[in-house]
Protein backbone atom coordinates (compact mmCIF):
# COMPACT_ATOMS: atom_id res chain seq x y z
CA UNK A 1 0.00 0.00 0.00
CA UNK A 2 1.46 3.33 -1.01
CA UNK A 3 1.58 6.36 1.26
CA UNK A 4 -0.99 8.20 -0.87
CA UNK A 5 -3.65 5.49 -0.71
CA UNK A 6 -3.04 5.10 3.02
CA UNK A 7 -3.64 8.85 3.43
CA UNK A 8 -6.87 8.56 1.41
CA UNK A 9 -8.12 5.69 3.59
CA UNK A 10 -7.23 7.56 6.77
CA UNK A 11 -9.00 10.69 5.52
CA UNK A 12 -12.07 8.65 4.62
CA UNK A 13 -12.12 7.03 8.07
CA UNK A 14 -11.88 10.41 9.83
CA UNK A 15 -14.51 11.99 7.57
CA UNK A 16 -16.92 9.08 7.97
CA UNK A 17 -16.43 9.12 11.75
CA UNK A 18 -17.16 12.88 11.84
CA UNK A 19 -20.21 12.49 9.58
CA UNK A 20 -21.81 9.61 11.49
CA UNK A 21 -20.85 10.93 14.93
CA UNK A 22 -22.21 14.35 14.10
CA UNK A 23 -25.44 12.79 12.84
CA UNK A 24 -25.80 10.87 16.12
CA UNK A 25 -25.24 14.13 18.00
CA UNK A 26 -27.99 15.86 16.00
CA UNK A 27 -30.44 13.15 16.93
CA UNK A 28 -29.51 12.45 20.56
CA UNK A 29 -28.35 15.72 22.18
CA UNK A 30 -31.04 17.41 24.28
CA UNK A 31 -29.94 21.02 23.68
CA UNK A 32 -30.86 22.28 20.20
CA UNK A 33 -27.89 24.66 19.94
CA UNK A 34 -25.55 21.72 20.47
CA UNK A 35 -27.57 19.86 17.83
CA UNK A 36 -26.98 22.65 15.31
CA UNK A 37 -23.20 22.61 15.90
CA UNK A 38 -23.25 18.83 15.65
CA UNK A 39 -25.06 19.19 12.32
CA UNK A 40 -22.23 21.46 11.16
CA UNK A 41 -19.67 18.79 12.13
CA UNK A 42 -21.63 16.12 10.28
CA UNK A 43 -21.91 18.28 7.14
CA UNK A 44 -18.17 18.99 7.24
CA UNK A 45 -17.54 15.24 7.44
CA UNK A 46 -19.71 14.69 4.38
CA UNK A 47 -17.81 17.48 2.61
CA UNK A 48 -14.56 15.63 3.40
CA UNK A 49 -15.95 12.44 1.86
CA UNK A 50 -16.99 14.43 -1.23
CA UNK A 51 -13.46 15.74 -1.49
CA UNK A 52 -12.06 12.19 -1.44
CA UNK A 53 -14.45 10.71 -4.02
CA UNK A 54 -13.67 13.10 -6.89
CA UNK A 55 -16.30 15.76 -6.13
CA UNK A 56 -14.24 18.78 -4.97
CA UNK A 57 -16.77 21.28 -6.33
CA UNK A 58 -19.58 19.67 -4.34
CA UNK A 59 -17.39 19.71 -1.23
CA UNK A 60 -16.88 23.47 -1.55
CA UNK A 61 -20.58 24.05 -2.25
CA UNK A 62 -21.46 21.89 0.75
CA UNK A 63 -19.33 24.02 3.06
CA UNK A 64 -20.55 27.29 1.55
CA UNK A 65 -24.29 26.54 1.39
CA UNK A 66 -24.82 24.15 4.29
CA UNK A 67 -22.29 25.10 6.95
CA UNK A 68 -22.18 28.78 6.03
CA UNK A 69 -25.86 29.27 5.21
CA UNK A 70 -28.30 26.69 6.47
CA UNK A 71 -26.69 26.02 9.86
CA UNK A 72 -26.48 29.75 10.59
CA UNK A 73 -30.14 30.14 9.59
CA UNK A 74 -31.12 27.24 11.86
CA UNK A 75 -29.13 28.79 14.74
CA UNK A 76 -31.03 32.06 14.26
CA UNK A 77 -34.35 30.21 14.34
CA UNK A 78 -33.32 28.31 17.49
CA UNK A 79 -32.36 31.53 19.24
CA UNK A 80 -35.62 33.22 18.20
CA UNK A 81 -37.56 30.36 19.76
CA UNK A 82 -35.19 29.97 22.71
CA UNK A 83 -37.84 29.21 25.30
CA UNK A 84 -38.61 25.84 23.68
CA UNK A 85 -35.58 24.00 25.03
CA UNK A 86 -35.95 24.77 28.70
CA UNK A 87 -34.94 22.25 31.33
CA UNK A 88 -38.32 20.56 31.78
CA UNK A 89 -39.11 20.31 28.08
CA UNK A 90 -39.27 16.76 26.72
CA UNK A 91 -37.38 16.52 23.42
CA UNK A 92 -38.63 13.13 22.19
CA UNK A 93 -42.19 12.07 21.53
CA UNK A 94 -43.94 8.86 22.51
CA UNK A 95 -43.09 7.08 19.24
CA UNK A 96 -39.37 6.86 20.05
CA UNK A 97 -39.20 3.12 20.62
CA UNK A 98 -41.29 2.01 17.59
CA UNK A 99 -39.32 4.48 15.47
CA UNK A 100 -36.04 2.97 16.73
CA UNK A 101 -37.17 -0.57 15.89
CA UNK A 102 -38.41 0.49 12.45
CA UNK A 103 -35.17 2.33 11.67
CA UNK A 104 -33.06 -0.65 12.77
CA UNK A 105 -35.00 -2.95 10.44
CA UNK A 106 -34.70 -0.39 7.63
CA UNK A 107 -30.94 -0.08 8.17
CA UNK A 108 -30.53 -3.87 8.26
CA UNK A 109 -32.37 -4.24 4.94
CA UNK A 110 -30.30 -1.43 3.41
CA UNK A 111 -27.00 -2.94 4.51
CA UNK A 112 -27.96 -6.46 3.35
CA UNK A 113 -29.00 -5.02 -0.01
CA UNK A 114 -25.89 -2.90 -0.47
CA UNK A 115 -23.41 -5.57 0.65
CA UNK A 116 -22.44 -6.77 -2.80
CA UNK A 117 -19.29 -6.32 -4.81
CA UNK A 118 -19.82 -3.19 -6.87
CA UNK A 119 -16.62 -3.61 -8.90
CA UNK A 120 -13.67 -1.34 -9.40
CA UNK A 121 -13.92 2.41 -9.84
CA UNK A 122 -11.87 4.66 -12.09
CA UNK A 123 -11.08 8.19 -10.90
CA UNK A 124 -13.14 10.97 -12.46
CA UNK A 125 -11.16 13.87 -13.88
CA UNK A 126 -12.07 17.57 -14.22
CA UNK A 127 -15.45 17.17 -12.60
CA UNK A 128 -15.94 20.91 -12.06
CA UNK A 129 -15.58 21.59 -15.76
CA UNK A 130 -17.94 18.73 -16.65
CA UNK A 131 -20.52 19.91 -14.13
CA UNK A 132 -20.41 23.41 -15.58
CA UNK A 133 -20.88 22.08 -19.12
CA UNK A 134 -23.76 19.81 -18.11
CA UNK A 135 -25.55 22.42 -16.00
CA UNK A 136 -25.41 25.18 -18.58
CA UNK A 137 -26.03 23.01 -21.65
CA UNK A 138 -28.16 19.92 -21.01
CA UNK A 139 -29.70 20.99 -17.70
CA UNK A 140 -30.23 24.68 -18.33
CA UNK A 141 -34.02 24.45 -18.04
CA UNK A 142 -33.88 22.77 -14.57
CA UNK A 143 -31.33 25.43 -13.59
CA UNK A 144 -33.73 28.23 -14.51
CA UNK A 145 -36.64 26.51 -12.76
CA UNK A 146 -34.40 26.18 -9.71
CA UNK A 147 -33.66 29.91 -9.85
CA UNK A 148 -37.40 30.64 -9.87
CA UNK A 149 -37.94 28.23 -6.95
CA UNK A 150 -35.24 29.91 -4.86
CA UNK A 151 -36.64 33.38 -5.66
CA UNK A 152 -40.18 32.30 -4.75
CA UNK A 153 -39.03 30.62 -1.53
CA UNK A 154 -37.25 33.81 -0.44
CA UNK A 155 -40.37 35.89 -1.15
CA UNK A 156 -42.57 33.28 0.49
CA UNK A 157 -40.46 33.30 3.64
CA UNK A 158 -40.64 37.10 3.78
CA UNK A 159 -44.43 37.08 3.37
CA UNK A 160 -44.88 34.34 5.98
CA UNK A 161 -42.65 35.86 8.64
CA UNK A 162 -43.74 39.47 8.11
CA UNK A 163 -45.17 41.26 11.11
CA UNK A 164 -48.78 42.14 10.36
CA UNK A 165 -49.03 44.81 13.02
Amino acid sequence: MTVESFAIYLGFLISAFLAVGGALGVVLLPNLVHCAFSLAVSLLGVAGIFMLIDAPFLAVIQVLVYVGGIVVLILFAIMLTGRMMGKGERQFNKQSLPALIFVFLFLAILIITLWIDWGAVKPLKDTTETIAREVFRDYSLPLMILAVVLFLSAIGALVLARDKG
Partner: protein
Amino acid sequence: MIDTRAILIVSALIFSIGLYGALSRRNAIGILMCVELMLNGANLNLVAFSRLHHIPIGQVFALFVIALAAAAVVVGLAIVILVYKQMEDINVDRFNLMKW
Protein backbone atom coordinates in the same frame (compact mmCIF):
# COMPACT_ATOMS: atom_id res chain seq x y z
CA MET B 1 -9.41 3.99 -4.18
CA ILE B 2 -12.19 3.92 -1.61
CA ASP B 3 -14.60 1.02 -2.04
CA THR B 4 -18.09 2.03 -3.19
CA ARG B 5 -19.53 -0.22 -0.50
CA ALA B 6 -17.95 1.81 2.30
CA ILE B 7 -19.46 5.05 0.98
CA LEU B 8 -22.88 3.43 0.61
CA ILE B 9 -22.77 2.09 4.17
CA VAL B 10 -21.86 5.53 5.54
CA SER B 11 -24.68 7.11 3.55
CA ALA B 12 -27.16 4.46 4.76
CA LEU B 13 -26.08 5.13 8.36
CA ILE B 14 -26.53 8.91 8.00
CA PHE B 15 -29.92 8.45 6.32
CA SER B 16 -31.17 6.05 9.01
CA ILE B 17 -30.01 8.28 11.86
CA GLY B 18 -31.77 11.23 10.24
CA LEU B 19 -34.91 9.16 9.74
CA TYR B 20 -34.95 8.16 13.41
CA GLY B 21 -34.56 11.79 14.47
CA ALA B 22 -37.29 12.98 12.11
CA LEU B 23 -39.66 10.36 13.53
CA SER B 24 -38.88 10.82 17.21
CA ARG B 25 -38.06 14.49 17.84
CA ARG B 26 -40.72 16.86 19.16
CA ASN B 27 -39.13 20.16 18.21
CA ALA B 28 -39.95 21.33 14.67
CA ILE B 29 -36.47 22.81 14.13
CA GLY B 30 -34.93 19.50 15.24
CA ILE B 31 -37.05 17.71 12.63
CA LEU B 32 -35.83 20.14 9.95
CA MET B 33 -32.21 19.41 10.92
CA CYS B 34 -32.84 15.67 10.66
CA VAL B 35 -34.38 16.12 7.21
CA GLU B 36 -31.17 17.89 6.18
CA LEU B 37 -29.23 14.84 7.39
CA MET B 38 -31.39 12.54 5.26
CA LEU B 39 -30.83 14.72 2.19
CA ASN B 40 -27.09 14.52 2.84
CA GLY B 41 -27.22 10.73 2.91
CA ALA B 42 -29.02 10.76 -0.43
CA ASN B 43 -26.43 13.16 -1.87
CA LEU B 44 -23.60 10.86 -0.81
CA ASN B 45 -25.34 8.01 -2.63
CA LEU B 46 -25.73 10.06 -5.81
CA VAL B 47 -22.05 11.01 -5.85
CA ALA B 48 -20.92 7.45 -5.05
CA PHE B 49 -22.88 5.98 -7.97
CA SER B 50 -21.80 8.76 -10.31
CA ARG B 51 -18.22 7.79 -9.52
CA LEU B 52 -18.94 4.08 -9.89
CA HIS B 53 -20.52 4.47 -13.33
CA HIS B 54 -17.98 7.09 -14.34
CA ILE B 55 -20.51 9.73 -15.40
CA PRO B 56 -20.51 13.05 -13.48
CA ILE B 57 -24.28 13.66 -13.94
CA GLY B 58 -24.88 12.42 -10.39
CA GLN B 59 -22.94 15.40 -9.07
CA VAL B 60 -25.25 17.73 -11.03
CA PHE B 61 -28.23 16.07 -9.33
CA ALA B 62 -26.54 16.45 -5.94
CA LEU B 63 -26.04 20.16 -6.68
CA PHE B 64 -29.76 20.54 -7.43
CA VAL B 65 -30.62 18.64 -4.23
CA ILE B 66 -28.45 21.03 -2.17
CA ALA B 67 -30.16 24.09 -3.69
CA LEU B 68 -33.65 22.63 -3.13
CA ALA B 69 -32.76 21.76 0.46
CA ALA B 70 -31.79 25.39 1.03
CA ALA B 71 -35.12 26.57 -0.40
CA ALA B 72 -37.04 24.05 1.72
CA VAL B 73 -35.30 25.00 4.96
CA VAL B 74 -35.95 28.72 4.34
CA VAL B 75 -39.70 28.19 3.95
CA GLY B 76 -39.79 25.65 6.79
CA LEU B 77 -38.11 27.98 9.28
CA ALA B 78 -40.42 30.85 8.24
CA ILE B 79 -43.42 28.61 8.97
CA VAL B 80 -41.92 27.54 12.31
CA ILE B 81 -41.37 31.15 13.40
CA LEU B 82 -44.89 32.12 12.29
CA VAL B 83 -46.40 29.23 14.27
CA TYR B 84 -44.25 30.16 17.29
CA LYS B 85 -45.62 33.71 17.16
CA GLN B 86 -49.21 32.48 17.03
CA MET B 87 -49.16 29.46 19.37
CA GLU B 88 -46.10 30.13 21.59
CA ASP B 89 -44.98 26.55 20.94
CA ILE B 90 -43.04 24.63 18.29
CA ASN B 91 -43.41 21.08 19.56
CA VAL B 92 -45.09 19.30 16.69
CA ASP B 93 -47.28 17.07 18.86
CA ARG B 94 -49.12 20.21 19.97
CA PHE B 95 -50.02 21.17 16.37
CA ASN B 96 -53.33 19.35 16.16
CA LEU B 97 -55.40 22.14 14.63
CA MET B 98 -55.93 20.28 11.36
CA LYS B 99 -56.42 16.84 12.91
CA TRP B 100 -60.04 15.61 12.93
